[in-house]
């Protein structure tokens, strides 16, 4: 971090300037918003704290902190080590990556559509991914792995929603209702498939169709983790363009942004993340609303908090999962229900409060 002296005399109090002098050529200089940096650090701290609590909470007898740490690094008793390393840690990892992925996808889609309600879940992506993933689980003649199927489903749903509303555009609310329609079709297809399998299989699939971290197939977690990092980098790279795209298409193009390409890339990233995340945890679409909303509250105004949204999504997911395990213990409330109970009132408030902005 450079001192203000080295920064151009346009130093603004709310920014850090990371500069790399290059001799004769103009220095490389990256601006970091102080408030966003602070928000991200806060969210990171919160995530670590929650992960710690979550690691220490479960149906087995509560472990002491030193015992938990020993078990985490493989030095505790075999039973503790098993519980921590094989049961709780993977669950937390799955929660972090799915929450981050859902929220990042939500943030990108909201920004591109200039509407805080335009999350992948509302426009039918979650249901599309779920329907295809269920198809692969119940073996409806297709032998792709669930992540690939969920990805295909999310892409098909996105193509349907955005294709069907091509003429009316993503502006306004109509395309959201079209998305609800697309989602309803896929939801019905999912139910249709579940009625055709045995009652046991349907029961087993139930927590997964409402969104839960119980299933979390290992290969799905792995593919999502592999996709999340490049997606986050792409999001950070797109941030500058997205910030301008918030103004209007005409202004953005005039400022030299390939608006169509930028929108396409952002939507593709959102589709990929949503599809892969659904393959891990089912449709927990409300995280895509709550995460970015949380991050925007903490971050500086008029920025697109890509990193913040990802972290906040992870926080929300881990917290909701923890809450779901504690609140009605020993019954476990699926994380999808917990987030829906938190997210729906938030959505209603955004939609019905005449003073609330709908632009992200």
């Amino acid at each position, binding site marked *: 971090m450079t001192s203000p002296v080295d920064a151009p005399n346009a130093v603004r109090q709310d920014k850090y300037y990371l500069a790399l002098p290059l001799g004769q050529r103009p220095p490389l200089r990256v601006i970091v918003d102080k408030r966003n940096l602070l928000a991200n650090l806060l969210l990171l701290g919160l995530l670590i704290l929650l992960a710690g609590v979550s690691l220490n909470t479960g149906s087995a007898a509560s472990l002491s902190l030193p015992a938990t740490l020993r078990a985490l690094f493989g030095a505790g008793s075999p039973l503790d080590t098993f519980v921590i390393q094989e049961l709780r840690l993977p669950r937390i990892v799955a929660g972090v990556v799915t929450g981050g992925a859902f929220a990042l996808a939500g943030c990108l889609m909201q920004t591109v559509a200039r509407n805080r309600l335009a999350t992948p879940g509302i426009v039918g992506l979650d249901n599309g991914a779920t329907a295809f993933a269920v198809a692969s689980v119940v073996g409806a003649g297709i032998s792709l792995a669930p992540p690939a199927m969920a990805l295909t489903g999310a892409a098909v749903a996105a193509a349907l929603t955005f294709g069907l509303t091509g003429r009316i555009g993503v502006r306004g609310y*109509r395309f*959201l209702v079209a998305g609800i329609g697309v989602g309803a079709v896929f939801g*019905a*297809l999912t*139910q249709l498939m579940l009625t055709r399998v045995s009652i046991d299989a349907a029961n087993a699939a139930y927590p997964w169709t409402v969104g839960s971290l119980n299933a979390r197939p290992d290969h799905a977690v792995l593919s999502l983790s592999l996709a999340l990092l490049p997606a986050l980098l792409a999001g950070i790279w797109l941030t500058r363009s997205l910030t301008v795209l918030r103004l209007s298409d005409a202004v953005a193009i005039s400022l030299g942004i390939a608006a169509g390409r930028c929108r396409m890339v952002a939507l593709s990233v959102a589709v990929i993340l949503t599809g892969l995340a659904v393959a891990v945890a089912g449709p927990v679409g409300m995280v895509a609303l709550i995460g970015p909303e949380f991050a925007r509250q903490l971050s500086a105004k008029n920025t697109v908090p890509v990193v913040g949204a990802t972290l906040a999504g992870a926080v929300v997911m881990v917290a909701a999962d923890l809450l779901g395990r504690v609140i009605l213990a020993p019954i476990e409330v699926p994380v999808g229900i917990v987030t*829906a*109970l938190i997210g729906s009132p938030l959505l209603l408030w955004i939609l*019905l409060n005449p003073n609330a902005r709908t632009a992200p």
Partner: protein
Amino acid sequence: MRVLTHYLSFGKPRSLIGLWLGLSGLLIAIALLSLLYGAGDVGPSRAWQALQDLGAAASYDSEARFVIAELRAPRLWIGLVVGVALGVAGALLQAVTRNPLAEPGLLGVSAGAAFAVTLAILWGADTATLRVSVAQLGALGGCLCVLAAARLQGIGNDPVRLILAGAILSGLLHSLSSLILLYDQHTADEIRFWVVGSLAGRQLDDLVPLFPSLGVAALLTILLARPLAALALGEHVAIGLGHHPRVVRLLVIVVVALLVGGATAAAGPIAFVGLVVPFAARALAGPDIRRTLWLCLPLGPIVVVSADIVSRLVVPPSELPLGVLTALIGAPVLIGVVRGRRLPTL
């Protein structure tokens, strides 16, 4: 389709009667089909034979007779009642919110009814009568939420935002119901088959508690049709014509709650019927609410009963929940309406 509706809506009252008779004939044919076809072993020819023997004291095919009298006939009756109730409720709700997309299932009215029933079962209510009243109360709650949202600044004249709010409310109530089902295994067992929305496994006795409230609803609908038609011209015009918009709106909401609550208690939450039926009725008969209501009478059961037939036949020997099928029919209609260059207004 456009050509068809153009000719059919070339509105003279006489053509309405012709249309009504034609649709009623179609309904009778479909009702007959629903008695003849099923997911089980009794095929159309055996069923036909059994139908002819129905008047006779004894029948040589007692299995077919049982299937028709005890399984298919109650189902048909419930389908008829539910179809009329949902179709008329949709038309009324659309007229009173002046929103062509207002549908009891989408707006959270059915979800309100379902949630109320879930709560009632959790707290030990069991008799069918109580269940109907509870569902109607829940539907009333949902209706009042919709009405309140529609009166909010900026929402009332944006049909699409109202639908979004309803969809979110439905989602919220659905999650709450799921929470209760997780919490209470007994409730879950009671309600599992009811909550998907289906005509299967219902008994004729389930219908009896509906009749008083449906009678009240029918009477009110007849009284309200004229003021509603005036209300379509705008609140001020309606006042000028000597109506009381506020009273009319509240009464319509009560009727919708009675109809949707009753239908939901009988068959579980079934979405999109209240969208598709009035939509078709308006396409055939034009926008006047009185004409729409007349056509909803045969159209509602046509949609529900034929969807029920398809649900029995598409994946034999198991059955498809009716709600799934109506969603598959209704969602494309919804998308089509939203896609239009201009939203139709009421």
